[in-house]
């Protein structure tokens, strides 16, 4: 009987995380009409960053989270600057962008 509240809580947590990621994905799609298949990659980067800063370096948890968010944002920015933006500038077709995002996905995995 104690399991039920725990399960519900777990579901809410998991659902919220997915919803958050979906919001981010949707934001990018709405602005650029482009499916960024590498979106999950950035989430992974965020996770690893927190782990790295918090566990390995021993920083304060909240501080690690904030820094991780900033770093992830930076990584996203760099990906756009060096990969997506040059492609968009030369009016590359959507397929090219998609394949590039597949490249990022597989490189990070």
């Amino acid at each position, binding site marked *: 009987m104690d399991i039920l509240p725990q399960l519900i809580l777990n579901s809410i947590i998991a659902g919220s995380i997915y919803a958050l990621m979906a919001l981010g994905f949707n934001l990018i799609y709405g602005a650029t009409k*482009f*499916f960024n*298949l590498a979106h999950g990659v950035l989430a992974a980067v965020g996770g690893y960053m927190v782990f790295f800063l918090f566990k390995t370096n021993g920083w304060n948890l909240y501080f690690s989270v904030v820094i991780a968010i900033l770093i992830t944002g930076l990584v996203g920015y760099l990906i756009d600057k060096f*990969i997506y933006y*040059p*492609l968009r500038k030369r009016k*590359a*077709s*959507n*397929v*090219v*962008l*998609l*394949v*590039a995002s*597949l*490249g*990022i*996905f*597989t*490189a*990070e*995995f």
Partner: protein
Amino acid sequence: MDCLLYSFFSVPKESLRNKMEYLIHLAILFAIYAILGISLNLVVGYTGLLSVTQSAFYGIGAYATAILLTQSGINFFFSVILGIIITAIVSFLMGIVLSKFNGDYYALGSFGFNIIIFSIFLNWQDLTRGPLGIPGISRPILFGLDFSQNTIFLFLALIILAIIYFISRFIVNSSFGRVLKAIREDEKAIQVFGYNTFNYKMMIFVIGAAMAGIAGALFASYITFVDPSTFTLNESIFILAIIILGGLANLKGSILGALFLILLPEILRFVGFPTEIAAQMRQVVYGVILILLMLYRPQGLVGEYKL
């Protein structure tokens, strides 16, 4: 492909005989990936459908062969045929859904299907033994030849590659192939001239899937062990990298691309990366290659078609 890495790097390079063995091993893998490359190129390069699910059919062919060879006394040849039939059915069902999409949605949908099939491999434990995999698959028994000898197996693999190559060439040079290219260029426009593009897309998708299934059968029988980890999304992307590197809409390009990407880990090792790092690096390198290709050379090595 991860399990292969250990066999790659565990072969000592001292004796010449071992070197030969190793080369034959690479050559067999090359043949398998060349078949996969050609099978995907028909769908992506010639018809313009960005399908990211080829490893699913690779896996179905492999598992079909694995299950049939370990659980019944069926001849290798017949298990390949059955594998093709199963692959054709699954790809047909998938194709009905996918062919309604175009462009981005096609890629996304195929992405999803790949994950579904992978999950089936992993979770349908009664059939596939899940993550444990299926060991002890026998080598083919055909015409009294001893296929446990890798040299003879290589022979078989190359013959099958040749057959697939010539079938693909026939398809591509036919009127059917010309319509595929027109679908790639402008599907709505070619419809106006009287073509049922849905049927064409279905046919080539199923044909490509069946060829990938054949590669899977070869793989299963060669390695004598299959498990789900080989048939992931990353594997599909790897096959995509092969054909983009070689050149889309170019069959010889797919063969070239397969050659290059199979030899790549060897080149990495040669250049000095320690073995363990080289294993992890592999995936990063494939991804980076894809990105670089998109940025600087979308037509690949010998392709005429620019993405």
